[in-house]
Structure formats: C-alpha cells, structure tokens
C-alpha cells in the first residue's frame, strides 16, 4: 500500500497532469494557444471509443461476475442520490435559485469521463488492477442524475420536454461509450489485438494533448468562476466531490469491489459532468445559468479532482479495502 504523498507526487508529475497544468497557465496568461474545436471533439471521440472498447474486451477476457451487476446498480443509485444531497447542500449554503441549484446538482450526480481516465492512468502507474466493466458503470451513471435534477427543479418551473429525455439518453458520449464497450465485448481479445496499435499504444499520449486542451478550457472556466461564483458556491465545488467520494468508497466496500474498481467508482462519484449534463440542462432547464454550473464543474471541481482528488481517492480505496 503506497503512501499518500508518493501517490500525490506520482500524480502531479505525470505528463498528463503537467500538460493539464500547462493549459491552465497558458489560459490564465491569455496566450492564444488553442486546439481547434474539431480536433478537441475528435480526441474526445477517440478517448471514449478506446476506453469503451478496452473495457468491453477486458470483460470478454475476464468474464462477468455478480459484482458487475452490483456495481451497475450501485452506480445508478449513487448517480440518483448524489444530486439530492448536492441540492440540499446548495439550498443550505448558497442563495442560488431552485433551478440553478437543481442544475448544478445534476452535474455532480453525473460523471466526468476524463477524470475517470486520469484515475485509470494513476492506477496503472501504481500497478493496481481494475475491472473493465467499470466503463459500463461510468456510462450508466451519466444520465440518472439528469432525470433527478429535472425532478428537483420541477416544483419550481415546469419546462422539461419529452424530446429532451430521449436526446439525453441518446447523447453521443453515451452511445459511443456503450457501443464501443459492446463491440469490445463481442470481438474480445482478438479484436483488441487487431486495433491495439490504435486504441492502446497512443492512448496516454492523446490523453496528454487532450488534457492540454482541457486545461485551456478549465483556465478560462477558472476566470469565469472568479467573476460569477460566490465563495460558498466555490466551496461546494471542493467539498461536494469529497462527499461523493465518501459515498463511492462506502458503496464500493459494501459490494466488495477490487481496490482499483473501488477507486474508479469513487472518482466517478466525485467527478462532475461538463459535457453531457450541461447540454441536457440547456435543453431542459434553460432558466438555469450555464455561467454558474459550467465554471464550477470545469473550472473548480475538475482541476481539484485531477490534481488533489485522485491521489486521495486512490489512497483511501487502498486504505479501506
């Protein structure tokens, strides 16, 4: 069991996190460094395809056990429960409108796949194994939170729309994650071998370039946060991940996940969405202000998890197991 400082150093000195830091610095320094939107979207597509496919292939290799089902159920439950807690916390500690609070809550129930990826890399570095099906759990956790958020906001104004729900469940990131997972499941080891040079070898490097871009966005988000977010809201962006992480650790312990999978479930609970949920919120809760939930999720919680959170979560997962 490696100690927490070693984990923190290993994390902070990984090329991945350093490129993320470079992006933040460049953004704060107002450099014109930027990735074209098409390239950023292309990398996101690649990362989700690769992680989904590898997850499916590893499930095909190691087979399915009952914990897979348990992990899925736990993930869905957590994705639905966390927004309620987040909503209460915001209601108590901030003066945000019910709709804003509900929208934010939805983000924290859902997940950030990039934070998930960062943890998988940290696990590799620490030589800790994890189950491939955690990708499926990640996909399953993306949407329940959105439904709960709409329900939380409903008492306020009713502007949800049947169409929205379908769009939420068929949003691109879920389709590619689940689709690639199923394909990996079908083609198994052989399939993985045939395209490993694409989905495995360059993966870490692409993630570095992608995190450079995420750093640029997070840096801008940080600036936005400075202007639009009151301290209690910023605080929420820091302690809410820890609350989520605690729940994730407990659940992982209860259903008997391996250390690696436990760390992944933890980071899924701790992370906040900044792709699927914001898009859904613009459709279903237009009154909620993106100028609040976007900077909070991408400018505060995302960097926090990536730099401070990951080593903590991994340490605790090892300690509690």
């Amino acid at each position, binding site marked *: 069991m490696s100690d927490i400082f070693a984990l923190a150093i290993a994390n902070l000195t990984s090329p991945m996190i350093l490129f993320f830091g470079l992006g933040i610095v460049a953004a704060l320094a107002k450099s014109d460094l930027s990735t074209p939107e098409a390239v950023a979207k292309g990398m996101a597509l690649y990362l989700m395809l690769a992680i989904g496919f590898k997850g499916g292939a590893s499930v095909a290799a190691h087979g399915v056990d009952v914990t897979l089902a348990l992990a899925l159920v736990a993930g869905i439950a957590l994705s639905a429960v966390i927004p309620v807690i987040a909503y209460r916390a915001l209601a108590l500690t901030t003066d945000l409108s019910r709709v804003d609070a509900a929208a934010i809550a939805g983000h924290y129930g859902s997940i950030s796949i990039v934070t998930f990826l960062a943890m998988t890399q940290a696990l590799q570095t620490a030589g800790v194994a994890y189950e491939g099906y955690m990708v499926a759990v990640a996909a399953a956790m993306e949407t329940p939170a959105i439904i709960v958020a709409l329900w939380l906001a409903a008492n306020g104004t009713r502007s949800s729309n049947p169409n929205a729900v379908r769009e939420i469940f068929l949003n691109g990131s879920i389709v590619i994650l689940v689709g690639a997972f199923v394909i990996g499941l079908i083609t198994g080891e052989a399939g993985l071998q045939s395209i490993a040079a694409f989905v495995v070898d360059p993966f870490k490097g692409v993630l570095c370039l992608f995190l450079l871009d995420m750093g640029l*966005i997070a840096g801008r988000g940080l600036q936005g946060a400075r202007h639009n977010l009151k301290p209690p809201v910023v605080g929420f962006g820091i302690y809410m991940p820890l609350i989520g992480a605690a729940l994730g650790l407990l659940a992982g312990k209860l259903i008997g996940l391996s250390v690696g999978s436990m760390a992944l479930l933890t980071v899924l609970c701790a992370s906040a969405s900044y792709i699927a949920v914001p898009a859904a919120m613009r459709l279903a809760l237009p009154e909620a202000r993106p100028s609040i939930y976007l900077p909070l999720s991408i400018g505060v919680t995302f960097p926090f998890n990536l730099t401070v959170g990951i080593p903590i979560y991994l340490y605790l997962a090892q300690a509690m197991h």
Partner: protein
Amino acid sequence: MQTFPKKRIEIMVEAPLMSRVLEILDEQGVSGYTVLPALAGKGKDGSWHRDGLVGRVGSMVQIFCIVDESRIDEVLEPLFKLVSQQIGIVSVSDVRVIRAEHF
C-alpha cells in the same frame, strides 16, 4: 433584373438549441433555412469561444431563414417564445430574391 421583396429572419442561438429552432421552422412550414457556425461572441450572458470546446454548450450557431413578409409574424411568435427563455437573439431584415416561387 426583377427581384422580389422578402424578409430575412436571423436567429443566434446556443448549439444545443439548434434542433429546437429548426423544428419550429419546420412546423411553420418555411421553404428553407440555413445554419452558419459562429466562432465566438459576447452578450448579456457573457462571452464564449468555440476553440477547444468538447461539448456543444458554450458555442452558438446562426440560423437564417428567408420568408415572405406575410408569414413573418407567425414565424417570429414561436421563435420569440423559445429564445426569450434562452441565450440568443432574433433579428429581421429586408432582402430581395430572384426566384419568388422559391420562398
């Protein structure tokens, strides 16, 4: 060369809302519309830039639709209802087209 007067409705709206706006235009039975990508912008709800974005939130599109003067109000009504609760603007200007029957 003979041209015919029409109205050009221009809608700036968030990318995620695009399909909504197009549905409205279809319901209104307009003869056609065009969507142009926007690169960056600023308004009451803050400024945005498309570069590096992964999701669709935080980037906007411009939709324009050339319609006959007579249709203008019935088309604007629902558009206004939608955009008024969203980030975006709607403007109208005069244009002349060559093929009247086309619109």
